[in-house]
C-alpha cells in the first residue's frame, strides 16, 4: 500500500502545475463551501437567537386550536389555571427546560387621549418573561428594564406615531371574553425596539393588569413560552412535552387522544423558518456545485493521466502487475489529489473565517441594524466537506482507473 501511495504521490508531483491548478480549484470550492456554510450558519443562528431570545422563546404550549386563530388573539382559547398547572407539572418532568412564562395575549386600542390606534398586548409576569426571553430587556430603548404593575412597555413605532414618551399616561381599551369593553390607564415605562417576526411589535403589561383589564375571574394565559437550556435539545424537549401532555407529534397539533394542548417549536411559529430552510438549501446547492467541480476536475486530470501514461501502464502490466493493482494506483492518485485540495481548502477556509471574526462585519435585518456576523469553524462541517471531496475524487477516479486496468498490455506498449 505504501508503495502505491508513493507512486501515486510521485505521479501527482510529476505534473506539478496541473496538480496545483486542479488542487487549487478544489481548494477554492472547499473554501467557498466552508466560509459560506459558516457565515450562513452564523446568520441563521443569530436570527433564530434574536427571535427566540427576544420574543418567541424556543417552544410554546397553547390550547388546541389557538395557533390556527393566532391572528385574532382569541380569549376563548386560553389555558385556564388547571391547564397551566398541568403544563407546569409536565415542564418539571421534562429535562432541559431553563425557564417558562405564561402570556395573556389580546388585541386592544391604544390611546394617548388625543388619538387612538390598534395594538397587540402581552400580559406577562416580568420575572418569568425576562428569564424566558432574556433579550427582551435589551429591546427597551428608552426607560428602565422593568415592568411594574400599572406600567406598559410600548413598541417604538407606535410611540413615535402617537407621540408618546416614557412617563406619559396612556389608555388601553380591550374587549373582554364576554364581549364587554373595559379600559385602564397605564404609565409608559419604556419604549420597545421592534424586531422582525411574530410578536415583534407587541406591547407588554403586567399579567395581573391584563387579567384585571380583561375582567377574568381566574388566571388564564394564551400561551406558555419555554426557554431551553440548550437549543440543540429542541426536538427532544418538544417530543417529551408532547408525550407528557398527550398532545401528539413533535410539532404539536396532534389530534389523537383529545389532549387540550398543542406544542409548537419556534419553527412552526415563525416565517423565518422558511428563510432558514432556504439558507440550508443554498448551502446544499453550493455543496452540490463543489461535488461537480471535484468530479469534473479530478476525472479530467485522471483521464489525462491515463492517456499520457498508456505506455507506462503497458510496461507495468507486462511485468505482471495485476489489473486490480493498476486500478488502485490511479484511484489512490485521485484520492490524494482530492485530499490535497480538501486539506488546502480547509486551511484557507479556516483562515478566512478567522479573518472574518477579526473583521467583525455587520449587517442589518429588518429594523435591526449593526448585527455582527461572527462565523465559527464547525468541525462537523469541515469533516463532512472533506469527506465529500475525497469520496467524490475517488468516484471520479474510478472510470479512468478502470480504463487503465482494462488496457491490453500489448496495445498499450504499442502506444507512442
Amino acid at each position, binding site marked *: 500500500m505504501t508503495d502505491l501511495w508513493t*507512486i501515486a504521490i510521485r505521479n501527482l508531483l510529476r505534473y506539478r502545475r496541473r496538480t496545483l491548478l486542479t488542487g487549487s480549484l478544489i481548494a477554492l470550492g472547499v473554501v467557498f463551501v466552508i466560509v459560506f456554510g459558516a457565515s450562513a450558519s452564523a446568520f441563521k443562528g443569530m436570527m433564530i437567537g434574536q427571535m427566540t431570545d427576544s420574543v418567541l422563546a424556543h417552544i410554546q404550549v397553547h390550547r388546541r386550536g389557538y395557533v390556527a386563530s393566532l391572528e385574532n388573539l382569541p380569549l376563548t382559547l386560553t389555558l385556564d389555571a388547571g391547564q397551566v398547572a398541568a403544563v407546569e407539572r409536565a415542564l418539571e418532568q421534562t429535562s432541559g427546560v431553563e425557564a417558562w412564562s405564561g402570556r395573556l395575549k389580546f388585541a386592544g386600542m391604544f390611546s394617548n387621549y388625543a388619538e387612538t390606534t390598534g395594538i397587540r398586548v402581552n400580559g406577562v409576569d416580568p420575572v418569568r418573561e425576562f428569564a424566558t426571553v432574556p433579550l427582551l430587556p435589551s429591546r427597551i430603548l428608552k426607560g428602565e428594564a422593568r415592568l411594574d404593575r400599572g406600567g406598559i412597555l410600548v413598541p417604538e413605532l407606535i410611540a413615535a406615531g402617537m407621540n408618546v414618551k416614557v412617563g406619559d399616561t396612556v389608555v388601553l381599551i380591550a374587549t373582554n371574553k364576554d364581549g364587554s369593553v373595559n379600559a385602564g390607564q397605564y404609565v409608559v415605562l419604556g419604549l420597545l425596539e421592534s424586531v422582525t417576526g411574530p410578536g415583534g411589535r407587541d406591547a407588554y403589561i403586567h399579567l395581573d393588569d391584563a387579567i384585571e383589564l380583561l375582567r377574568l375571574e381566574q388566571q388564564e394565559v394564551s400561551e406558555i413560552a419555554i426557554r431551553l437550556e440548550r437549543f440543540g435539545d429542541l426536538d427532544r424537549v418538544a417530543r417529551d412535552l408532547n408525550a407528557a401532555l398527550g398532545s401528539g407529534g413533535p410539532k404539536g397539533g396532534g389530534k389523537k387522544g383529545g389532549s387540550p394542548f398543542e406544542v409548537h417549536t419556534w419553527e412552526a411559529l415563525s416565517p423565518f423558518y422558511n428563510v432558514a430552510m432556504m439558507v440550508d438549501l443554498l448551502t446544499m446547492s453550493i455543496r452540490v456545485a463543489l461535488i461537480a467541480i471535484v468530479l469534473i476536475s479530478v476525472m479530467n486530470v485522471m483521464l489525462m493521466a491515463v492517456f499520457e501514461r498508456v505506455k507506462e501502464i503497458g510496461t507495468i502490466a507486462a511485468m505482471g502487475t495485476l489489473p486490480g493493482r493498476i486500478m488502485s494506483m490511479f484511484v489512490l492518485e485521485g484520492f490524494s489529489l482530492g485530499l490535497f485540495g480538501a486539506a488546502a481548502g480547509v486551511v484557507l477556509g479556516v483562515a478566512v473565517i478567522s479573518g472574518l471574526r477579526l473583521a467583525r462585519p455587520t449587517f442589518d435585518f429588518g429594523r435591526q441594524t449593526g448585527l455582527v456576523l461572527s462565523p465559527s469553524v464547525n468541525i462537523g462541517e469541515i469533516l463532512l466537506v472533506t469527506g465529500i471531496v475525497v469520496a467524490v475524487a475517488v468516484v471520479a477516479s474510478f472510470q479512468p482507473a478502470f480504463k487503465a486496468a482494462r488496457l491490453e498490455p500489448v496495445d498499450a506498449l504499442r502506444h507512442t
Partner: protein
Amino acid sequence: MSLPSTPAPLIVGERVTRIYRKAEVEVHALRGVDFTIPPASFVSFIGPSGSGKTTLLNLVGALDKPTSGRLEVGGVDIGTLDRRQAAVFRGRHIGFIFQDFNLLPILTVFENVEYPLRLVHPTPAAERRERAMALLDAVGMADQRDKYPDEISGGQKQRVAVARALVTQPKVVLADEPTANLDHETAGLVMKTMWRMTDQFGTTFVFSTHDPKVVREADIIYQLEDGRLVDGPRQGSMPS
C-alpha cells in the same frame, strides 16, 4: 502455476497463427509458425519490419494469444490463460526488455529494478534490496542507483532494464529490438551483459532484432518473413 524443470524444450510453438481483425480487414501477422527453444539459450528472431517478430514475442510473453495453433512456455498453454492468469504468468516467468527501455520515470534506477519485487512479487525488504543491488552491480549500474531515468544515458537505461527483467529470476527474457536505440559500442556492452546473465542465471533470452551484432551472438536463429518461418533453426551468424 510453477514451471517444471524442463530439460528440453522450454518453449514450443506449433502452427502458431495470429490474425488481427480491424474493421473489415484481416491482417495475418503469423501464419502457422513452428519452433522450439531450449532452456538457457540465446535465440534471435530476425526479419524485416512487419514479418511478425514482435507478434511472436508478444505471444511468448503472454501479452497476446494465438488465433490458432498451440504455444507452450514451460508446459503452460498460453492460449488458455485469462487476463489475470496471464498477468500472474508474466510476473512469475517472463522478463521484458523493450526497445525504448520503458523505465518508469518517477522511480530511481534502484526503484525501477526493485519494482517487480515490490508490486508484482512482494518480497521482504532485505532480500529485495540484496537482489536488486546484485543485479545493478552485475550490469555495472550500482553507482547510479539513486539517479532517475532522465539522468542516465540510453545504454545505461537498457542495462537497468536488463537488471529489472532479471530481478524476479524468470526462465525467459524477451527482448524486442533491445539494441535499436543504442550506439554500436553500447549495444555490444548490453549484449555482453545479457550473455553473462545467461551464464549466471541460466536465463533464456529471446530477441527480435535487425542488429547483426545481436544475431551473431545468438545460439539459435529463426528468420521470419510475412508471418512465416523461412529459415531456422540454425546457429548464429547474420544471413547474407
